[in-house]
């Protein structure tokens, strides 16, 4: 009996030993999984130690010190004075209070260039550094008070600041001091600080694109602080703004010249192929090639090329729409219906760009500066809604309004346009097109457009236009070949040679049911209680009349009283 009990107890000991062993193994596992990440210890020595201790003591810009401690600068032993050093006579030199330390208040790109020479040079050759807003400044110079410009335009366009030391640019516009974080510079919102709003909604376009959507969904898993020099692979799954416009991949070095990969001047009043520093950066084809080689990190070459060709045709189409706008305002000006602003022999508005006292000038400004850009930039950066509703829709509205304005002012041609009932009237300009799109073959969508359903020579005319653009150098040889490939096989790309009638019929049926339901439910009904307003003789019921009379009386009294007090005041 007792012997048995001891045996059981021994067994229990054995079982618990096993249990303990298991738990201990788990603990060892937990231990092994723990990563002890050691942060580098920041040494502050020499003159920087004096900066840090004094600033901390006096509580001046203490956060800046904390930020600096997080920076790569701190890790590499680059301290306060390395950037804030100054020489006697420098425009920003001053002695730190109660000390003999000469400090530069504004480190400029010249200071950054001490180490980041290449980046500063690249930046200076980009359109970020271009002071076009000072060169072409009508709206700022006449339409807005300067104080607004200080806080508005100037804050963003400060990125092209020209410093007294002749260096150009503002590095901390994107690399916020004093962490100078790469990750922050790569965050889309950094670009979006300025590239936002009605005239260039790039952050909005990005966020509505597939790129932006995936970025938002997976942002937390992505580390944007990587270094992209040395032709390394792109380490993140989905691009942010900088991935395409600045960062490198296996084929492209990273660049601080945001203009090095752009093929269009699509912010301008007309879309034209860029010639920006082309002796240094290459022509637009070279620049486009850079961009494409980034795109091709993730996308197939065919997709990228078709996509850009489609977007390029949007830019070209914009020019044709604009041509109509320009035609009309020039005619209106010739006929003396609109005038430019002028003072001391200098013009302060430009009928083909802006001017703020006549309707057509407004329309011109918006059709270029707002919807015109949205139309083009939406197309080139996958912002469908910006190409569509914020873009072409508003552009067309502007055009219709412009012609109607002319008709109201008696222009015979405009009147004719207004009175025309032909559906082609909305496209009084030449047309570009491409069979199909980059996303796939849509066997249905090409059955509706008026022009190419009704004009047998639709594609012939388009062919001529595209060919002309190619011959003018607005499209490359490869693009022309790509276009021809689609043109020669357009039944395939347009999907018209595929029969999907049965599918279509099914959805037509469903549509018929929907329409019927709508008609039955709400369209064909009339409420029995009449509306209170009747055309011709709207009247008030007696009761209301009395009430309103009362109100009018009281209001008068109130006014009288107020006048009484003010006059009384003045008498005293």
């Amino acid at each position, binding site marked *: 009996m*007792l012997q048995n*009990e*001891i045996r059981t*107890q*021994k067994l*229990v*000991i054995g079982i*618990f*030993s096993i*249990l*303990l062993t298991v*738990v*201990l193994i*788990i*603990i*060892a596992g*937990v*231990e092994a999984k*723990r990563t*002890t990440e050691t942060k580098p210890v920041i040494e502050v020595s020499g003159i920087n130690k004096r900066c840090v201790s004094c600033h901390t003591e006096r509580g001046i810009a203490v956060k800046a010190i904390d930020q600096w401690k997080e920076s790569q600068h701190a890790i590499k032993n680059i301290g306060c004075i390395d950037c804030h050093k100054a020489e006697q006579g420098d425009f920003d030199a001053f002695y730190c209070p109660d000390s003999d330390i000469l400090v530069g208040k504004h480190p400029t790109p010249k200071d950054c260039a001490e180490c980041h020479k290449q980046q500063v040079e690249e930046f200076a050759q980009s359109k970020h550094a271009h002071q076009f807003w000072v060169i072409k400044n009508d709206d700022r110079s006449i339409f807005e008070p300067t104080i607004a410009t200080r806080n508005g335009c100037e804050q963003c366009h400060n990125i092209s600041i020209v410093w007294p030391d002749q260096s150009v640019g503002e590095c901390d516009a994107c690399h916020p001091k004093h962490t100078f974080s790469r990750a922050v510079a790569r965050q889309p919102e950094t670009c979006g600080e300025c590239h936002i709003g009605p005239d260039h909604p790039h952050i909005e376009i990005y966020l509505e694109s597939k790129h932006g959507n995936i970025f938002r969904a997976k942002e937390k898993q992505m580390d944007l602080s990587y270094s992209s020099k040395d032709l390394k692979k792109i380490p993140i799954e989905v691009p942010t703004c900088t991935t395409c416009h600045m960062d490198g991949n296996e084929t492209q070095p990273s660049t601080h010249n945001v203009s090095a990969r752009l093929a269009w001047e699509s912010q301008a009043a007309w879309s034209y192929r860029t010639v920006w520093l082309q002796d240094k950066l290459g022509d637009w084809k070279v620049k486009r090639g850079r961009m494409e080689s980034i795109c091709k990190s993730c996308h197939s070459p065919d997709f990228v090329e078709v996509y850009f060709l489609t977007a390029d045709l949007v830019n070209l189409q914009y020019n044709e729409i604009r041509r109509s706008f320009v035609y009309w305002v020039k005619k209106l000006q010739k006929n003396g219906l609109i005038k430019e602003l002028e003072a001391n022999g200098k013009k302060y508005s430009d009928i083909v760009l802006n001017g703020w006292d006549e309707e057509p000038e407004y329309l011109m400004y918006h059709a270029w500066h707002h919807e015109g850009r949205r139309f083009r930039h939406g197309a080139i950066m996958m912002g469908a809604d910006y190409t569509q509703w914020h873009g072409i829709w508003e552009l067309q509205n502007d055009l219709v309004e412009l012609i109607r304005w002319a008709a109201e002012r008696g222009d015979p041609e405009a009147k004719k346009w207004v009175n025309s009932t032909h559906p082609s009237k909305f496209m009084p300009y030449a047309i570009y097109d491409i069979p199909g799109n980059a996303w796939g073959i849509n066997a249905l969508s090409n059955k509706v457009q008026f022009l190419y359903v009704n004009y047998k020579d639709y594609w012939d005319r388009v062919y001529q236009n595209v060919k002309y653009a190619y011959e003018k150098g607005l499209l490359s040889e490869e693009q022309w070949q790509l276009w021809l490939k689609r043109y020669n096989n357009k039944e395939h790309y347009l999907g018209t040679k595929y029969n999907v009638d049965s599918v279509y019929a099914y959805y037509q049926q469903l549509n018929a049911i929907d329409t019927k339901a709508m008609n039955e439910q709400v369209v064909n009904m009339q409420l029995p209680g009449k509306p209170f307003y009747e055309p011709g003789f709207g009247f008030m019921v007696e009761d209301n009349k009395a009430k309103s009379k009362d109100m009018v009386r009281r209001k008068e009294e109130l006014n009288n009283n107020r006048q009484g007090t003010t006059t009384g005041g003045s008498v005293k």
Partner: protein
Amino acid sequence: MNQMQEKKFSERLPIDFKKIAEVILNEPIPGHMKNWFYALGATPLVLFIFQVVTGILLTFYYVPSPDLAYQSVKYITEEVRLGFWIRGLHRWGSNLMVIAIFLHMVRVFFTRAYRKPRELNWILGILMLITTLGLCFTGYSLIYNQLSYWATTVGTNMIKEIPIFGSLFLRFLRGGETVGVNTLTRFFDLHIGLLPTTLFVLIILHIVLVRVHGVSRLEGYEDDEIYRFYPEHMYHVAVIALFLLTVMSALTVVLPPGVGEPADPSTTPLHIKPEWYFYWIYFLLKYLPIKLGIALILVALIVATFWPFIEDILKKKFPKVKWHYIVGSVAIVLLLIFTVYETIIY
């Protein structure tokens, strides 16, 4: 060792180890002790040994200074290999020890094992409980994070209210006006020196008394079967030890010891609370005027300490009433209510 050597050895160290071993190992144990509930006395002992071992290991890295205490705890928890395990064992060990002692007391109380002639051992037990709680309190304050810092401040402030010696005692503990460097070093001394030594001596006395008196028989079962301490009861203890180590290790993985915010003497955090085993005190102080609360606690302590004698007096007056059931149940219910209430309302 052959006999010659043995003889030489015992000549130089004339202690009869065999005899001692025999006395210790052959201790007769009443049969009812086979029930696990009756082995609870060994649990705190096992835990005490664990605490000593893990405690010594913790001092390898712990630095008792306000500047470094928190950092070194963080270092142990986050960087030292298996540091979180050792610290977790120590922390869970302290919690389980309070529970084990409490259960042991409950068992002793309801079986009236403290009755004549074992009153002294009950008093020793109460002293051990107080020492253990003292260890818990000082240990908690050593972490030196926000919670433990303020728990220490509040806890030591209570001492001031003790009649006559209160403020003297407070200043002895704190070594200054507020909790600071001196408090930390004093608490460290108490925690690793004075209190464990006291507890150790008390444990020895407690066991010696148990052995000298013999394990108490259950009332009404005076003649149950007897077995030897070794091997059965030893196995019991071994199982308990293994079980505890397993449970505490597992708890460490599931609920690892945290570090919290470093102590900041200039801001009191929004929610401060002592460890759960002080909730009843916390409750009394929250809802009663402080003097009354302290007085009540002191009275409770005195009654608990001298309960065996008090019961005798009561018994003489009301021989029929089972006082220990009434008082025990009321005490447990009150403690539970206070603790649960404080746990729930946070």
